[in-house]
């Protein structure tokens, strides 16, 4: 049984609960890996007081579906959950969650890593940071593009 759950939401989430939702009542899962991304209080500028996440409704969900499908093709997954928040958040708030489940750990580890790398370069989300010295749009990083590129030949 493979369970796929993808959601873009304004509300916060609880990583522990989401992991449980995936693994509960299942005896075929041997490994669950989760990644949670949080809002930092420093980035390109120090003293980030808040962050606003904009997205392209409709395309975002499709892009996440495609990334999930690609991960399921590459690895033997028993389930996955992707949650991404939009709207205004403050330092310490969770932004993104990827949970992968498989029979053996390597599939779950690699798939989780892969999904995050592609989410960062393919899914239409944009961050605007609010700092004590003004608001600015976060620029994309070449390190993220490189991280996604390393999967191309594998």
């Amino acid at each position, binding site marked *: 049984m493979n369970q796929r759950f993808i959601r873009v939401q304004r*509300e916060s989430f609880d990583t522990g609960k989401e992991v449980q939702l995936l693994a509960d009542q299942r005896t075929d899962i041997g490994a669950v890996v989760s990644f949670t991304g949080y809002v930092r209080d420093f980035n390109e500028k120090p003293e980030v007081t808040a962050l606003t*996440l*904009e*997205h392209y409704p409709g395309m975002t969900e499709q892009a996440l579906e495609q990334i999930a499908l690609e991960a399921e093709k590459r690895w033997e997954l028993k389930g996955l959950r992707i949650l991404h928040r939009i*709207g205004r958040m403050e330092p310490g708030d969770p932004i993104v969650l990827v949970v992968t489940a498989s029979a053996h750990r390597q599939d779950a580890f690699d798939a989780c890593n892969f999904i995050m790398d592609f989410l*960062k370069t393919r899914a*239409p989300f944009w961050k605007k940071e609010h700092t004590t010295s003004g608001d600015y*749009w976060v620029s994309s990083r070449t390190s*993220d593009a490189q991280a996604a590129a390393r999967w191309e030949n594998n």
Partner: protein
Amino acid sequence: MNQLTHLNAQGEARMVDVSDKKITQRTATACASVTMQANTLNMIVEGGHPKGDVLATARIAGIMAAKRTPELIPLCHPLMLSKVEVELQPDAQLPGIRIHATCKLAGQTGVEMEALTAASVAALTVYDMCKAVDKRMVIGNTYVEEKTGGKSGDWTYASLKSDTQQQAGLQINFFAELREQLGVDNLSLELDDFSGSTLGDLLTHLKSQKQQWHNHLSSPNLLMAVNQQMAKPSQTLKEGDEVAFFPPVTGG
């Protein structure tokens, strides 16, 4: 054609019987905005406002209003809301306040009227608290952004096309920093409005509109999508396509 469920066979108003509807987890998010003078916005953000903390007051007003919805809207069912969240964001581009209200419950009927009421009353409260310093405020853009659960399923405002959009040639959206730089969220164009028929031809046309547009649309990192799929300039456009231009993505 969708029927108006609040009318009976005789065309009289009625409250819809939802007894047999399944109980499902439902959420709705509505938005509204209050456009104001830049100085008024600064006062709110810096907390120098004569009536005190505008955003905190408006947030509470929105939450209280959601709970009063059935008393205001005649055919609306009283609901046991399980959550109301009202978010107010100062936006220097408007300039003004953007409001998002989310209501949630497990029940037999939707919560969009509660979300709309919360957003509307939060907007009215912002107006009330600022009217002494700004008489040119405009409340607007009140609509349901997103709904989940229930018979009509999950949808977002952007995913539903209006009748006019379905007829229009091309719907063009801009996002994030590019949206702010161009000063426009979206526009409609006919395929005959520009020469050529590819995405690249459309981009050339947009660039020729203003010098400023030329500069912002010439970024080598500009991304494009057609019908919500990443696309290249060589892609041919057809009637009804949804086109989008945006900067590199920065989620996660």
